[in-house]
């Protein structure tokens, strides 16, 4: 079946997916694109924002829009609300004694799903956090001597609440690194907000009757395809320059790692696909750099946080926009 999937069709479908999600989550096209980018790059995403901005609905809609094997037709979607008393077991599952078979069998936890919404991840204890992040990275769970692979398409949408920091365990930089992209969901603009108020019934209805525009196979195909997206060496060079500049700037205490660079490239490629292209452009670079790098860097102060990455990106964009490449002599 995978052989039958055409790249052009898949690209069209991913646009449809974006459109589809946008019928429910209004005015968040960019965020939707970032989420899909993380998905196609085989990564995970961290969303940071106040409650009530549509994070959960977003995750739900995404899960519903992809045709899979569940009863509802969508992919398997699980949601965990992280609390301080949550245990790793609650995530990955546990061995329970089967009275009939007289043996311990593994009861799979909520991690065995396609789309996982990890709500307020910073409220859970570091132990739980690391368990989740471990799974995200390894795509498998090891219990005792047995290794259980996770679903082939496993995508975590973690959320973080920037207010009410008391009694939370903020993710350390090393952990944040596991998330390919961190986005700030943000409020919609005034007009869209009015539109939402006028149509909230219809929007809820849209969620009920969401179309499934993309199959899970197509997602997997696109995930493979993302690796084959053409990336010009000048863009690679730009990525290298940006990574290096984050290490050189005195305003940034901790620069980006080489692993970040690789993630960066993966995200760029996936983002190109999300935008219906099979090549990476400077536009992709400009749009995605803050989402990919910002949470990996430790800044000297607030002022530096606001400025330094933008300055580095500006310089590189300036260089790229002045390049005369691709012309025939």
């Amino acid at each position, binding site marked *: 079946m995978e052989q039958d999937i055409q790249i052009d069709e898949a690209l069209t479908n991913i646009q449809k997916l974006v459109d589809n999600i946008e019928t429910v989550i209004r005015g968040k096209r960019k965020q939707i694109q970032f989420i899909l980018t993380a998905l196609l790059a085989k990564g995970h995403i961290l969303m940071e924002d106040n409650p009530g901005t549509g994070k959960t609905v977003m995750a739900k809609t995404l899960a519903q829009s992809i045709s899979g094997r569940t009863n509802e037709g969508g992919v398997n979607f699980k949601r965990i609300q992280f609390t301080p008393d949550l245990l790793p077991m609650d995530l990955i599952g546990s061995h329970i004694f089967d009275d009939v078979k007289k043996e311990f069998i593994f009861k799979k936890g909520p991690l065995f799903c396609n789309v996982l919404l990890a709500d307020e991840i910073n409220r859970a204890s570091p132990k739980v956090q690391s368990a989740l992040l471990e799974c995200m990275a390894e795509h498998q769970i090891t219990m005792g001597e047995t290794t259980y692979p996770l679903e082939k398409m496993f995508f975590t949408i973690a959320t973080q609440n920037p207010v009410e920091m008391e009694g939370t365990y903020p993710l350390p930089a090393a952990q944040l690194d596991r998330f390919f992209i961190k986005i700030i969901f943000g409020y919609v603009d005034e007009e869209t907000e009015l539109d939402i108020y006028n149509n909230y019934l219809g929007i809820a209805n849209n969620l009920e009757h969401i179309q499934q525009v993309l199959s899970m196979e197509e997602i997997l195909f696109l995930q493979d395809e993302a690796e084959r997206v053409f990336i010009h060496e000048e863009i690679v060079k730009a990525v290298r320059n940006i990574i290096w500049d984050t290490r050189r700037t005195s305003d940034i205490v901790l620069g980006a790692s080489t692993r970040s660079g690789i993630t960066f490239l993966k995200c760029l490629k996936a983002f190109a696909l999300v935008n219906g292209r099979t090549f990476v452009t400077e536009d992709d670079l400009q749009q995605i750099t803050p989402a990919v790098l910002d949470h990996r860097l430790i800044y000297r102060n607030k002022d530096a946080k606001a400025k330094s990455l933008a*300055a580095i990106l500006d310089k590189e964009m300036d260089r790229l926009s002045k390049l005369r490449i691709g012309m025939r002599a």
Partner: protein
Amino acid sequence: MQIGRIHSWKKVTAQLLLLALPTVILALYLLLNVNQYYSVLQNNWLEQGLYFTTGIVAAIVFYGYRFRFTTTALLLFLTYFIAYKFLGRLNIGEFDAFFFSVRFLVFSLLFSAGWLAGYGFSRSRYFTILWSVFLLVMQIIVVSKTAEITANALISAFAPVLVYAFYIIYTAELIRNMNEDEAAFGWFITKRLAGFISLAVIVLFALLLIFQKEFNSIEQDWGGSQGGKKNGGKESMTKQNKDGSLSNKDQMKMTGSLSKDKRLVFVAKLDNFFPDGVTPNPLYFTSTYYTKFDTLTQTFETDTSLPFNDLFTPDPSKIPLYFAKTDTSAITNTMATLNRKVVSADIYKVLLSPKEYIAPSTAFFCQPLPVENEYKNQFKSAYRAKMWVSDLNSAYFIYNPAGNKQLEAFQEKRFDLLRKATSYQGLDKKFMDYYTFMPSNEEYNRIRILAEQITKDAKTPVDKMIAIRNYFTGKDQFGQPLFKYSDNPGIPGLPSASKLNYFLFENRKGYCAYYAGATLFLLRSLGIPSRIAAGFLTVDRSSKNPGWYWFYADQAHAWVQLYFPGFGWIDFDTTVPDQNTQQSPQPDGTPPMNTQQALMVADGQAVSVDTVAKRVIMKVKSLLYHDENIPAPAPKDLLMDVSIASVTRDTGAGKLSDIKTGTNIVAVSYAEALKNIMANETDNLASLLVKLPKPAPIDEIKIMENEEQKKERQKQESTATKPIDWVKVLWISLLVIGGFIVLLFALPWLIWLYLNGKAKSKTEPRTKAYHIYTASMYYLNQVGIIRENQSPQQYAEAADRRFGSNFNSFANVYQKVKYSNTPLRPAEETLVQNFYSPFIQRVKNNIPFKERLGGFLNIYNTLHFFTKTKNS
């Protein structure tokens, strides 16, 4: 309390180093100059500079913080006021108090200036432009007040300010746009500044080269050479050419004052003697005639269309040595037959322009002569003139020959002869009308009445002339001279009032132009044909060299000539002697000795010059041999030995290396070897040259200017004669600045023309896409749609939303061209070909013309496009 910062320390440091420091240096320089120009008693420029520096540094640091200008400035003034009051209360002497308050005033002025400048540099974007203009205007005012203007002074006054102006505008903008967070920020600034400085040096150098002549001519015009203080309506009887030589002018104004100097202009030997054959009879040397009067400007002018033109005006520098130029029509036109003879004069020029021909009236012959080697440093060139001179003419005609019986007798004899000419009947009507013309109105009628009153007893024209002369030299009822000589007669209160009437009826003071002008109209009102002659008056001071006369610049003169039927034009001078100035005796030098007899003179063009072997080959066009003009049917080459030859040009001694192939030269030989080689009757140029020794020995070579050089020089000289006042300097500097500004404003549009042309002319889709994209981005940016931090796609989408265009689709194609490895699809290629013109048209239609024009005039938009403003 924490006060917010507007600029980071980095930026403030950059402002201090790159803006304040040069400003302070310039301020010090200007203060030094101002102190010198105004000859301030105590030269405190260093201290004053310190005030300014304190002000500017304090303001830049201060306004790096979030302070408001109005409040802080008011506070500053309050501080001044309190300090001033406080100073007043200090118990010190009255003089000290005054001294202190002056010092304090200077301090507060300079400190405030520095403070304002600092504020401007820190906060205001357009301040640098205002500041530059202000400094330039200041400098122009300072320069206009200086007494001595030289090219160097002009350059040293303007160059620093100009350089500073460009520098400060550029650097301020650079600092404003700089990104402090950038790692290599220092390097960025250094790079830009280095580029700018090298460009500035080139531009300045080019400007200096281009305007050097202007600067020099300004120096000539108002420099110290004319001596004394610069004075508004100063007039000179001669004009100074660019090369420093003197010529007579083609107009004569009557102005408030006359400038004179004592430099030697030329020396002449005149073979004119009284009938006894021993006593020299000096004659005035005429350069030109003023026959026309411009009533509007009250200026006497030359007229090229004067009837019966007897003015011979050859250009001696154009005539080859020993070759003569003759114009006998001058003799015919004088209509003078009685008491005339041919007299010759040798003129040796010192300051007189090489092309100037000056001789006593009615000259008709000009033959350039070489100057003897030992006099070459003193005399630049020489020529012989021949004149149709009247026996009755003499420079003594005005100077009282009292005591000298011979001269008195001669005077009387002349007057008797001239009394025979009583009637102007039968003269050409055109001639009479022209030379008796005078304007008729109330003012000139007054002159007419005066003329009739003066000459009521005189019967003949010469008696009328004598009556007029006696009127000028007469005394009033108190026994004082009625008219006085003055170089500074002043001008009538009303600018439009007749200066002649003012001279004749009120002031009665003036220099030669006034006397000549007044006499002319007195004579013409009586119907006596007359004209003004200009040139040099001749003073016989030489007792040891009879016939030699020395002419200094202050001998430049104007007088009248009267026409007597049969006798022709006779000089009369009515200018009264200058009683006030003690005429210091001018030293007479040694006159140049008689020239050798040239055996051969060849005129032609140099064909080849060998400066080592001292050989020159010239193409001879005409030849004088033993004073015989040898017929030359065709030019012929002549090999010459120039090892002992001296090379001269009009401006003085020259070098052999000055002779280039094609230079017009005249070769002269006095060599003994030629003495015995005779030319036959049948010899022509070719056959004669064969007889000469090879190489032919040459003693003297004169370089003739060819026509092109001549024209160029004449052009230069004509520009030099135009009056240049300081307003012109202002104009020149304003023009340079104005040109720069116009170029600056036109620059965005010129760049657009270039990019637009490129976008339209390319056909290959990938290249075309690039140029279209660049041109479109430039156009959008220029009309005010600035791409802040948008990605290319966001920017394109924003443009599309505004104009309903398809820029985004095109931008995508362009990005594909740039970054993809897949070829363009046909649809995409079509888009590239058809996108551009409709898009630009659409943008044009959507933005009103005024807004587009405004955008295109804004150079900052362009800067933004190319340097991309870093948002801080």
